[in-house]
């Protein structure tokens, strides 16, 4: 094994995604532009134009076709990649089911963007979370480094369990903000991520087969079960791949929920994506002020790391769930999931849902402090004021 000397580059989250796709040696990219994802596919096109990557690039006429073309490419044995945001992801919805149902390990980057109307190009996780039940795995990156690492790991996990994966970064906060990213030399990426060995290959004519044919009630159910099992299996694979990544490159992803100063915490903030950077910084300040708080970041939302959440919940009195998303008629999606996971366990900390940052509304350290004060008060009283708090509302 060659020695790992990272290549440091100052890049946007989008460029981090593009570099990762190139380093993963993707063979087919089919994509359609949408703000704020566009610079991912532009950068990949540049790599091709400069001869830095050998990729078949299909400039399709819509996101629906982007995913359909990736599906065709993946079914024909290639490593396929695309990227999109919000309306584009919604347009792909039907094909997302097709990719997972046909067990194709496509990797896609979604740049979280709020859904219209009203038009908004800013951050909001509802676009990707609305794809929760499509059978795709979902990895939420906190920073540009995690975008890069996430794409590489996603391919490895996806190709091991034959389930597609989404790597999700936030609009502008990551997609267009430059930061130092440690990239991995090509030969080391190649060792970590060898060429794909497809589950089936449309270009193999030895024994003709068909994919996706009609399944009667006698068989359809088992197809679903197998996909469900693949997600279960994926949890193990994710942890192993994350550990291997850590051993090779020094950044450990062996846990699906990253915890920060949670060991002796009275209560923790639970959330996903870029806002957790702000939360961690706030935790440090709050600790100095005597709050015993910690942060827990859900890296992989699908499959959902229920066991790790349970371990966390056992040790705390309260969980403030920060949702940059909303399921209308109910509550924040992570909150909903987290409560659901804990229902049949003995861990029942007070859980409160804070809806924050929708449509790019700024979420700052002082917001975290206010939430901490509120959480402290609730815990002292032993009961919730409200369960779902639209935190930023102009009252």
């Amino acid at each position, binding site marked *: 094994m060659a020695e790992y000397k990272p290549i440091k580059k100052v890049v946007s989250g989008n460029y981090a995604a593009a570099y990762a796709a190139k380093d993963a040696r993707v*063979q087919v990219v089919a994509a359609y532009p949408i703000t704020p994802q566009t610079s991912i596919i532009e950068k990949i096109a540049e790599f091709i134009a400069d001869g830095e990557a050998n990729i078949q690039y*299909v400039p399709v006429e819509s996101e629906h076709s982007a995913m359909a073309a990736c599906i065709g*490419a993946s079914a024909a044995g290639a490593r396929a990649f695309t990227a999109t945001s919000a309306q584009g992801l919604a347009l792909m919805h039907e094909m997302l089911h097709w990719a997972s149902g046909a067990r194709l390990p496509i990797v896609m980057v979604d740049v979280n963007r709020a859904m219209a109307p009203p038009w908004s190009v800013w951050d909001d996780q509802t676009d990707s979370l609305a794809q929760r039940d499509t059978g795709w795995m979902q990895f939420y990156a906190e920073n540009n480094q995690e975008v890069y690492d996430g794409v590489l790991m996603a391919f490895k996990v996806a190709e091991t369990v034959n389930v597609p994966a989404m790597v999700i970064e936030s609009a502008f906060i990551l997609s267009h903000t430059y930061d130092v990213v440690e990239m991995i030399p090509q030969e080391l990426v190649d060792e970590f991520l060898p060429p794909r060995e497809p589950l089936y290959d449309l270009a193999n*004519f030895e024994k003709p087969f*068909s994919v996706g*044919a009609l399944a009667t009630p006698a068989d359809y159910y088992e197809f679903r079960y197998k996909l469900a099992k693949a997600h279960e299996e994926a949890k193990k694979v994710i942890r192993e791949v994350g550990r291997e990544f850590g051993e090779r490159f020094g950044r450990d992803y062996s846990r699906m929920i990253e915890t920060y100063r949670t060991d002796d915490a009275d209560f923790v903030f639970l959330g996903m994506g870029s806002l957790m950077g702000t939360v961690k910084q706030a935790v440090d300040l709050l600790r100095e002020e005597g709050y015993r708080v910690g942060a827990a970041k859900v890296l992989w939302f699908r499959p959902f790391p229920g066991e790790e959440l349970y371990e966390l919940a056992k040790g705390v009195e309260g969980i403030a769930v920060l949702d940059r998303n909303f399921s209308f008629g109910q509550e924040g999606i992570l909150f909903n999931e987290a409560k659901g996971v804990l229902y049949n366990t003995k861990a029942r900390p007070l859980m409160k849902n804070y809806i924050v940052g929708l449509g790019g509304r700024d979420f700052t350290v002082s917001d975290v402090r206010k939430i901490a004060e509120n959480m402290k008060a609730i815990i002292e009283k032993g009961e919730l004021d409200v369960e779902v708090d639209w935190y930023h509302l102009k009252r």
Partner: protein
Amino acid sequence: MEIPENVKKRLSIPAEEHFYAGHTACQGCGASLGLRYVLKAYGKRTIFAIPACCSTIITGAWPYSTLDANLFHTAFETTGAVISGIEAALKARGIKVKGEDGVMIIGWAGDGGTADIGLQALSGFLERGHDAVYIMYDNEAYMNTGIQRSSSTPYGAWTTNTPGGKKHFLEKRHKKKVIDIVIAHEIPYAATASVAYPEDFIKKLKKAQKTPGPSFIQLFAPCPTGWRSPTDKSIELARLAVQTAYFPLFEYENGKYRINMPNPKNEPKPIEEFLKFQGRFKYMTREDVEVLQQWVNHEWEKLKKLAEVFG
């Protein structure tokens, strides 16, 4: 059944079968014949992409397949995009596509999946110039969902969402000329074909195979179930569609039009000839038949002009 070599030599289309018996098409189904001919022309080194349509069913439910070739079932509107992706993958893997010894990638879709919901993906596929063949089998309605109109349904035809009633029928729009839309993309090869003329169809398939870039064939494929016609009349109806110039056979090759009617000297028969045996036309009045005839005349004259000017 083994076909003796001397008989094989006399056959004008390949004897080999790659479309298995036991498929689930209705009796007299034109689409299933079409699939059989495609496989005769291209053999088993073929990858099919088939969207939602009757052919999804015809080709067999899991775990069976009636095709001696690989088949990817895909979403209704995605044929053009999926074959684009398959082609890109094979190119990325260095696998030869199209031509005598290349893998054939076939999009096989109905008129609904082509003229309506799949038109965008078809256009993208054509415009980008992928090396694959798109075959639209035209049975002039959505048969798989129980006979609803498509934009390829002709004027005056009954369908379940354009029913005939006490007052009149509802389908008052003329058949969309998908092939014209395709040709507007100026692709290297496009043609119409009919299951009543398999030699012509196979010749066109072979031409599509040899021509680099995207090819498109619109195949006329009667559907006795949807047309309310006797199951033993499908070939006759397909032949009459050509003979009446309702569905003329022609090719568009590198900018040139060539009409290939079986008897070029014959004037087209009146449209009534084609309308007979078909329950779907029973609501038409004399005037309606005249409206349809006018449309056929107009389109036929247009085609002849094109062949004259761009022949």
